[in-house]
């Protein structure tokens, strides 16, 4: 898998576009701030949310069983999947049993994580993503680049071109209103024809056996109220103990995600409609591993609002695809290595440790601390590239030898300002890319102290 630095470098080749991407996400971050400031109890809500989620993880086996019991009592079929393969087999099994060949799906990062779409397509089932952003990237044959706004990286001209080719819209059309209307008409047909609906799950309630799905478009509701089969796929960390806990989470989720006071639809499902069938697939796929880790357990608090990516200076300037992980950004850089530390070894370094993600996280995940801890883990596991290993070693050696440190500093202060530009700004010096090095001071702090204080 190409490393984050390599893909990020490709992304910023197009400066104008990288800037546009950065601004789009900052706009969303600003809307989040405005929404958060409208509730004086915002910080209190974050604290409650964090405590509820930490309690949930501490009681996970117990709460999962409680959820299964209550959901079953309401006529829901509950399935357990250890990994992506088992998850996909279960979903396919249910569809096959009902002889379903046409499925609509609302946004679910979990099914992206499991690569459910290509799996079902290989088995002859048409699966249509119905969230507009997800439909756009599906038509492009690409994954989402953002977990809340899957097509945030695509320009309207490109969407116009794509829709012209795939949906027969007018050539050269770029008006979002027109393009959205075309998608509405196209997807209405898919909703009407579908024999089953798949949704993700935002929250599952142990106490009642119900679950909640949030959308702005209404696609989860259309996809599940026109046919007789609803399959909901969820990670085992999506649980909350009580229905009342939603009064905390639904106040935080949309405000953190897009700056809306709540999503347009927050639908609570408690069992199938008369004559219909409802299935829930509970997926582990590495989550139980994270729950066993004291360092990373809190990453299971995540409610997938994406506030951390909208604020992240690295994500905004490198794009979702540079992470090569279903969930990009700060939280993805924690979850990715947890699943496969070797493949995702560069992600924890895609971070300036500025801590902005930790500040905005509605469930108070200590994101930048966990990213730092991951760097150590990557080193311990031996996945650090040679260049980083050797430079760290040299740095450590120099830092431990005061005289050498002083000498190196002195030499650098003398030599660097006299070097020709091509020796400073080239492939070898990552710190000289796209920016000027800071001006070197004439003397070190130690020398300055000596001159100004010690002799007085």
């Amino acid at each position, binding site marked *: 898998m190409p490393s984050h630095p390599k893909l990020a470098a490709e992304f910023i080749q197009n400066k104008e576009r990288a800037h546009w991407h950065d601004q789009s996400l900052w706009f969303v971050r600003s809307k989040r701030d405005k929404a958060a400031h409208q509730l004086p109890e915002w910080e209190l809500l974050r604290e409650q949310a964090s405590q509820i989620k930490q309690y949930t993880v501490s009681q996970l086996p117990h709460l999962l069983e409680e959820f299964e019991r209550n959901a079953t009592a309401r006529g829901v079929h509950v399935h357990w999947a250890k990994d992506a393969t088992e998850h996909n087999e279960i979903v396919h099994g249910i569809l096959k049993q009902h002889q379903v060949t046409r499925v609509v799906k609302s946004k679910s990062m979990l099914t992206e994580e499991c690569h459910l779409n290509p799996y079902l397509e290989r088995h002859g089932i048409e699966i249509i993503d119905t969230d507009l952003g997800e439909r756009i990237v599906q038509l492009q044959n690409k994954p989402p680049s953002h977990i809340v*706004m899957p097509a945030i990286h695509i320009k309207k001209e490109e969407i116009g071109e794509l829709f012209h080719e795939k949906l027969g819209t007018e050539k050269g059309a770029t008006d979002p209103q027109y393009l*959205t209307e075309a998608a509405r008409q196209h997807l*209405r047909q898919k909703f009407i024809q579908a024999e089953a609906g798949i949704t993700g799950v935002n929250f599952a309630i142990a106490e009642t056996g119900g679950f909640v799905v949030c959308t*702005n478009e209404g696609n989860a509701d259309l996809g599940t109220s026109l046919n007789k089969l609803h399959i909901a796929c969820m990670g085992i960390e999506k649980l909350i103990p009580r229905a009342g806990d939603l009064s905390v989470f639904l106040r935080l989720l949309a405000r953190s995600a897009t700056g809306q006071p709540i999503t*347009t639809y*927050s639908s609570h499902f408690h069992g199938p409609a008369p004559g219909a069938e409802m299935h829930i697939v509970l997926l582990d796929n590495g989550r139980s591993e994270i729950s066993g880790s004291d360092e990373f357990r809190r990453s299971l608090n995540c409610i997938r609002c994406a506030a951390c990516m909208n604020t992240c200076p690295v994500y905004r300037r490198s794009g979702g695809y540079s992470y090569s992980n279903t969930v990009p950004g700060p939280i993805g850089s924690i979850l990715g290595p947890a699943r496969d530390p070797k493949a995702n070894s560069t992600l924890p370094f895609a971070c300036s440790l500025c801590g902005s993600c930790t500040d905005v996280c509605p469930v108070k995940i200590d994101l930048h601390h966990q990213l730092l801890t991951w760097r150590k883990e990557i080193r311990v596991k031996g996945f650090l590239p040679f260049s980083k290993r050797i430079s760290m070693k040299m740095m450590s050696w120099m830092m431990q030898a005061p005289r050498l440190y002083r000498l190196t500093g002195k030499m650098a202060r003398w030599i660097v300002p006299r070097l020709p530009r091509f020796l400073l700004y080239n492939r070898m010096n990552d710190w000289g890319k796209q920016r000027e090095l800071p001006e070197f001071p004439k003397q070190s702090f130690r020398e300055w102290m000596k001159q100004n204080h010690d002799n007085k």
Partner: protein
Amino acid sequence: MTTSKDDILNKLRNQSVPQRELPDLQSPELTKEWIVYPDPTAQFAEVLSGVGGECYPVKDIHEVNQKLSELSAFKEANKVCSQISDCGSPNVSIPEITDPHDFEDIDFAILPGEFAVAENGAVWITNDGGPARVLYFLAQHVTLLVPASAVVSNMPQAYERLAFAENSFGTFMSGPSKTADIEQSLVIGAHGARSLTVFLVEETFQTT
């Protein structure tokens, strides 16, 4: 042979995860902090208009009908259905429909909502899972009638009113369907309702 369920649960059970307290959301120290609006109805109307919906406080069904006759979406609607007695002169009878697909061409639906939430402009609706559930999402335009006395300030107050024993389905609807998936440009009318009008009705009204 162990099942995946056993595997997952056993793995979790064998971990030593520090015990955590579950916060009591009913405790007065918390509840006194939740935002309460001096005029919840005005707040609700303001937030709803901010998310693209419209709110009219009215006296009775007669006034609803009058207001409806001024709405262009209603005037232009060919197929109308209503779950409120004497409201909106419907020409499609809901009880006669058994397949939700038959609601495909409904232009305007008048439906009941249980209560409204001031902090986010949402209306709580429930449905027992009959075919009419799809009307909230499939109709081109949706109008909700909510008792004027049923406006709460915040979500904790909303959840105090909710029990999930009866209906298999319930949702908070806040404004019309929308998307900003194309370059962050807000477009109203993604898949669901193109417009959402909420009437807060003073006098009691009957559902059909």
